């Protein structure tokens, strides 16, 4: 699926766990200033609330109200999360950066940054000590999606007023992240963005550039293929791309322009090796695979229902399914260890699917489907024809839909690996419940085009997804360019694919040789844009907290990687590294990678020496 800044999103994956274990702390009533009521409150009740403010209600009662007010609770959590995050970040940076650095320039900058961080930390700590934050029942249940409880207007007014004051106070500290204006789901959505906003901003403002900013962040976290921008730029600049006609500027068929759907059908027939010609009527095109998945999840599942998905898997989907559609993903946890039923690490078996489905059912979750990614992200595995068949049969047995994401199908660069598209099968076990997603983001390295396609035999599903054509539509001009691109088989087969594959191969070889030299275990697969590697040797103890710290250490050295936790991997220590970047940044990235690991090794040795002394 489309991965959207996942590198940045992965900066603080474990925070909510930290917070919920923090537990309640008693707090004097006068400082309970929280409420997030964004509900209209009559001016009159507001005034009343003010007149007997703060000395009427006992603390417990007030706390109950605060908890009862879902919105305030969420907002409180938000602020706490953010503060916690900031503090964590500062502490990590302060403790993990060694004071002695080789470069004087960097040292200078580091000192300056440390000073700023300390000042900020002090302010945050002061605020925390003022007792405003803790003790408001952090273990309160997550807000539900229903309409808010409307009771207790006057008391809410009072809370609201008190909140106003605190928000005001906070805004002076530049940490005001409480919103009066958003719905609960809006807050969730915003929090998702915020959790990485600062880091993304930092990254955007300090991106690596060959000439202009060689010291900037190198992003090997976001899955983009930057190896063939020269070819793409040249192809897209040819004059045939610039055709314009009135139909392209007008509303089109919501499913997508007929000419594009026809071309997509032809394209998939050929590259997926479909035994029969695919039908343009079964194609819906939308603005990116995220949109296709979101629309599909919405029409297949009601809120709270779930899809099974083998993990580790690309984490962007979690939010892809959740932000709009509120569909949950039930992980089918895979092991790195090779056991009886499996021949490879992280192998998916029907047994595991059966088990996960049973567990989900026992938990009272309604499972509507199975989500498969093939070639797999982040493992790089491709499913054999037999395995694929087994998974589909499993789904059929339980009347489950299968959503199969083949976004990397043309990024199989090792000739010895054979990819089997679900559309290549002679007969699908349950064609009306099999839905395939493909897009140009990865295979053509044009994630900025925002194009995704759905292929489904199910007319009902196709129609329902087409309703989203307005909300997730693609510009007519873009549709035309995509059509021209997909049409140009000559160029794709003779120029683009061979070059792309050989460049991917070279980049992959470069990275894997480095990893071998460092004796880092990794999955050596011939597809995708990434390597899934195991850094647990560098974690002590081997926990997700340590994984996060190591991730921060990479960030501190201006290198963005994705930690395994984001892929819902159940074993700490795995990281995904994107290798489809130009040789120069790749080389520099590996240099930084090496530095961080060396540093980490040194620290582990020191830790080992210190531990016996303590005893």
């Amino acid at each position, binding site marked *: 699926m489309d991965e959207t800044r996942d590198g940045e999103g992965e900066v603080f994956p474990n925070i909510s766990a930290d917070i919920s274990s923090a537990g309640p702390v008693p707090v004097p009533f006068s400082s309970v200033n929280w409420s997030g009521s964004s509900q209209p409150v009559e001016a009159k009740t507001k005034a009343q609330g003010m007149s007997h403010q703060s000395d009427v209600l006992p603390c417990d009662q007030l706390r109950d109200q605060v908890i009862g007010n879902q919105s305030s609770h969420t907002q409180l959590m938000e602020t706490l999360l953010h503060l916690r995050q900031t503090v964590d970040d500062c502490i990590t940076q302060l403790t993990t950066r060694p004071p002695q650095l080789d470069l004087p320039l960097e040292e200078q900058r580091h000192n300056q940054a440390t000073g700023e961080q300390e000042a900020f930390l002090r302010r945050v700590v002061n605020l925390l000590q003022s007792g405003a934050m803790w003790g408001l029942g952090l273990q309160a249940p997550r807000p539900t*999606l*229903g309409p808010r409880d409307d009771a207790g207007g006057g008391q809410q007014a009072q809370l609201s007023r008190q909140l106003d004051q605190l928000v005001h106070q906070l805004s002076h500290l530049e940490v005001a992240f409480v919103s009066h204006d*958003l719905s609960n789901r809006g807050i969730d959505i915003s929090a998702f963005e915020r959790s990485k906003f600062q880091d993304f901003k930092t990254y955007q403002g300090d991106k690596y550039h060959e000439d202009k900013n060689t010291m900037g962040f190198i992003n090997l976290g976001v899955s983009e293929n930057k190896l063939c921008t020269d070819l793409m730029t040249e192809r897209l600049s040819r004059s045939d791309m610039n055709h314009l006609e*009135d139909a392209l*500027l007008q509303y089109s068929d919501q499913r997508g322009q007929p000419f594009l759907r026809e071309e997509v059908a032809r394209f998939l027939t050929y590259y997926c090796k479909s035994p029969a010609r695919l039908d343009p009527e079964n194609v819906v095109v939308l603005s990116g695979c995220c*949109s296709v998945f979101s629309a599909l999840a*919405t029409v297949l599942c009601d809120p709270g229902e779930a899809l099974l998905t083998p993990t580790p898997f690309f984490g962007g989907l979690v939010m892809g399914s959740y932000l709009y*559609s509120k569909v949950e993903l039930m992980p089918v946890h895979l092991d790195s260890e090779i056991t009886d039923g499996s021949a490879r690490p992280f192998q998916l078996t029907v047994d595991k699917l059966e088990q996960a489905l049973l567990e989900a059912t026992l938990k009272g979750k309604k499972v509507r489907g199975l989500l498969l990614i093939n070639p797999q992200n982040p493992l790089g595995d491709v499913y054999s024809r037999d395995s694929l068949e087994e998974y589909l049969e499993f789904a059929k047995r339980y009347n489950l839909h299968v959503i199969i994401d083949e976004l990397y199908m043309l990024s199989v660069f090792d000739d010895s690996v054979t990819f089997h598209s679900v559309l290549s099968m002679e007969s699908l076990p349950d064609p009306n419940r099999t839905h395939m997603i493909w897009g140009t983001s990865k295979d053509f390295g044009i*994630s*900025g085009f925002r194009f995704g396609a759905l292929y489904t035999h199910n007319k009902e599903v196709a129609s329902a997804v087409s309703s989203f054509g307005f909300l997730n539509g693609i510009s007519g001009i873009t549709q035309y360019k995509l059509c021209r691109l997909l049409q140009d088989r000559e160029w794709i087969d003779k120029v683009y694919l061979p070059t792309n594959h050989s460049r991917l191969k070279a980049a992959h070889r470069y990275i894997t040789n480095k990893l071998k030299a460092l004796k880092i275990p990794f999955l050596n697969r011939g597809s995708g844009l990434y390597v899934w590697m195991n850094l647990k040797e560098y974690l002590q103890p081997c926990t997700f907290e340590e994984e996060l710290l190591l991730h921060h250490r990479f960030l501190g050295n201006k290198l963005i990687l994705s930690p395994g936790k984001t892929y819902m991997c159940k074993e700490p220590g795995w990281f995904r590294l994107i290798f489809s970047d130009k040789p120069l940044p790749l080389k520099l990235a590996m240099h930084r990678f090496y530095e961080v690991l060396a540093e980490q090794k040194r620290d582990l040795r020191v830790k080992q020496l210190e531990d016996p002394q303590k005893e």
Partner: protein
Amino acid sequence: MFALPEKESRAPSTCPGPASTQDLDSNCGDGLERECSRKPDQKLPELYGVGDPTAGFSSNSSHLSSRGGIIKWFWDSAEAGYRTYHMDEYDEDKNPSGIINLGTSENKLCFDLLSKRLSQSDMLRVEPALLQYPDWRGHLFLREEVARFLSFYCKSPVPLQAENVVVLNGCASVFSALATVLCEVGEAFLIPAPYYGAITQHVCLYGNVRLVSVYLDSEVTGPDTRPFQLTVEKLEMALQGANSQGIKVKGLILINPQNPLGDIYSPAELQNFLEFAKRHELHVMVDEVYMLSVFEESVGYRSVLSLERLPDPQRTHVMWATSKDFGMSGLRFGTLYTENRDVATAVASLCRYHGLSGLVQHQMAQLLRDRDWINQVYLPENHARLKAAHTYVAGELRALGIPFLSRGAGFFIWADLRKYLPEGSFEEERRLWRRFLDHKVLVSFGKAFECKEPGWFRLVFSDKAHRLCLAISADWP
């Protein structure tokens, strides 16, 4: 020409008099008032209506979720008329007897100008950054350009900020994202009706948010009033009514210039509506998608962004797009302007579903930057052509004695065909609509705009002269 069969003229024959030659635009509002006052079925006026697009619908699909069934139903019902149209679309060469579309609000008058401009070499740049994941709010270069553009054309007293701009693939998406981040499931927005009916679907599909219609009357109640006039009183009543039904209203949607009325809110009216919203802590979403399509200069349109002081800037969200003003609905470019950073961030987070190709973002920035072309070539020509098309259609309607509303903005005329309905029912309205379609003209009926009076139709006039000519002169009912 518009030959009216004897049978069909029953209704108007009972209402003789001045109603037959009105143009509500200028002087004949009172005629309409008289006509309305004669209607017997208007004892208890409905003041508001809570929209429930899914009422009475149950899904029995084995493959779709229950909401999936509803979503599919949207698709099926929207398609009915358009499927007929798409199967028999008019084409001057290939299908000269096909259906002419006066139903979709698109400006087809200036493709020649646009095509020329979009084909200039500055538009065709391709560079790697445009092919990769952008900032989800939109590329900075485009957001800066949008801020400058809106500052200028909305006559903002202070320069607008790029930080407050979010770029999405059309205003439909802006509605969808705002509904989701401002409301819980089942909460509602107020909207004066008649209104552009697609908004119902935009806020419902993902957001599951409802619309509460503030019903407006064609009847004119005083000397300084006009048909379908929105007042604070009506807003208050609708809000109270919705609250009394236990419906939580989170905001107010204003379309200005209005669709389908072609009406414009004066700065004083705007201010009043905004103050109303502030009193009740409602968000206001102002859809200004027709702001540059005001072709009568005397109308004196004012954007909400031109107000010296917004009553509640944190709850005022403005949307604009190139779909109408630049006649490119197929381009899918829309933008949100809000000073509320929380809202902007939350909407931006949803932009991963509503993104716009980097190449198109570049083109839009180039287009909006080219003030010379916009001011000296495009806008004057576009307005002149809109005016000419409007004059033609308005003239034909007058000749037919059909009353209508139109104030010199937008692409449409809101026509009163009540006298052609044998009885004032929506079934008859739909029957008349079908009759138009059978006669190869696609128009939009009032029910689609939640108009509470049956018999109103929206006719889009922003099409080429020969098509208009054919549509008007086709065998009308």
